[in-house]
């Protein structure tokens, strides 16, 4: 059973499909990059996967121990957050909230776990710092740590390097790559085809042509593959 299996999915807002007839799956150990032009519906697809907007048709099944709410999500940063008075530790720990009962407070184990996650991403020294005073790269790491508090299985990253300078982007990719090697499956939306080809195991191209395959196959059809060459890898 795959972690996520998407079958004949159409998604969009108000019955206007942005993407339709999409079929793909993500297994443990996969690193899937979703690429496509602006406005091709990458973010809409991600929101549908997360259950933030309902699918127009088709199914999204989760399995292999993953539930729909057990996905760690790294959203694009919002204007509200840039000016939010919160310490990094508070933000990282808020990743546990979805797993907890409403009235319960954080346990000692959870606080230690949050510290361990921050260690893992090398941001323990930022714990007491104010989120709005961090650099873009540091903010992304803090939000990545929060996502790790919400999952051990699958991360969904929405343009994780948007607005970062090249060095910070490189560090971000390296951090995600390390997590992937440690056994976490990754789905990442990106504009950056080079990075996708460097790190991903699978590539999903959305837009006028829809293409889902392993990286090796994508490389032989760079850019937009012809519909005739579209491959079905699901069996």
């Amino acid at each position, binding site marked *: 059973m795959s972690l996520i299996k998407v079958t004949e999915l159409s998604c969009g807002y108000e019955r206007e499909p942005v993407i339709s007839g999409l079929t793909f799956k993500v297994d443990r150990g996969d690193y899937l990059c979703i690429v496509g032009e602006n406005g091709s519906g990458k973010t809409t697809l991600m929101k549908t996967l997360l259950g933030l907007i309902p699918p127009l048709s088709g199914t999204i099944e989760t399995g292999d121990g993953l539930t729909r709410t057990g996905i760690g999500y790294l959203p694009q940063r919002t204007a509200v957050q840039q000016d939010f008075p919160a310490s990094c530790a*508070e933000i990282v720990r808020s990743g546990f909230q979805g797993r907890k009962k409403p*009235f319960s407070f*954080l346990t000692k184990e959870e606080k230690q776990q949050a510290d361990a996650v921050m260690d893992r991403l090398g941001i323990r020294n930022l714990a007491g710092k104010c989120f709005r005073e961090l650099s873009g790269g540091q903010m992304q790491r803090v939000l990545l740590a929060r996502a790790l508090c919400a999952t051990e299985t699958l991360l969904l990253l929405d343009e994780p390097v948007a607005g970062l300078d090249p060095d910070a982007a490189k560090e971000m990719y390296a951090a995600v790559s390390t997590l992937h090697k440690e056994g976490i499956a990754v789905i990442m939306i990106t504009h950056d085809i080079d990075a996708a080809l460097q790190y991903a195991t699978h590539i999903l191209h959305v837009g006028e042509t829809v293409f889902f395959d392993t990286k090796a196959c994508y490389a032989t059809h760079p850019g937009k593959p012809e519909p005739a060459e579209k491959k079905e890898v699901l069996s």
Partner: protein
Amino acid sequence: MIEKLAAYLSYPFVRYALIVGVLISLCSAMLGVVLVLKRFSFIGDGLSHVAFGAIAVAAVLGLSNRMLVVLPVTVVSAVLLLRTGQNAKIKGDAAIAMLSVGALAFGYLLMHLFSTSANISGDVCSTLFGSTSILTLTKREVWLCVILSLAVIAVFILFYGRIFAVTFDEDFARATGIRTKRYQLLIAVTIAVIVVLAMNLVGSLLISALVIFPALSAMRLFKSFRSVTVCAAVLSVVCATLGILISILAGTPVGSTVVAVDAAAFGLCCLIRVSRG
């Protein structure tokens, strides 16, 4: 001066005013942090005008317990306003502006047409600016206020983790399984309760000040959500107590004095931030 104060404190209505003032300022400051951060500051303002309209209706109907009309009407408006705020098609700020001035005009019109009192402008003025109402509280109103305030504080503490998660990042909270709509509703109802309570202290025009000033002041000084919330609550209680005492000693209107103290505290916090560099 201290003797004069002690003499005043021996009157029950002064003690009631202090108890209610402290509780209301505490609640409004805590929720104020959430409202300011969620960019909902204007909602307190809109709701207070709705509450003014509701009071006018209650007065015209000749109800002895006005809370029975004001509280439900305000709660329903709060829920509606937060809903429209989420809907991109209807401009949330326009809806609020419309509702708030509409309720204000309608309320005054009703009071004017059907008033049983000889002194309409006095009635309107005290509803808008709360000039005397906090000093005329009955024991029952004080108890109601105490119970509702404690409920608001309990809700805030029990759901603290959730409230933080939903305020900081609603999409993430929803994606990880938190039912964010419920918390929106909870926040809406709580704001409505606070607005209705705060009308006693500062009147309906000045409520927003009680919600916004302490939160903004605390944000000048502190950098974590918890410390901002605690600081806003403490600052608000101190300012309300000071304001009430000054107004008693100097014979100034309670509501505007409290707000003036809050504004002064905000100025002070800005200065401290600037001096820190």
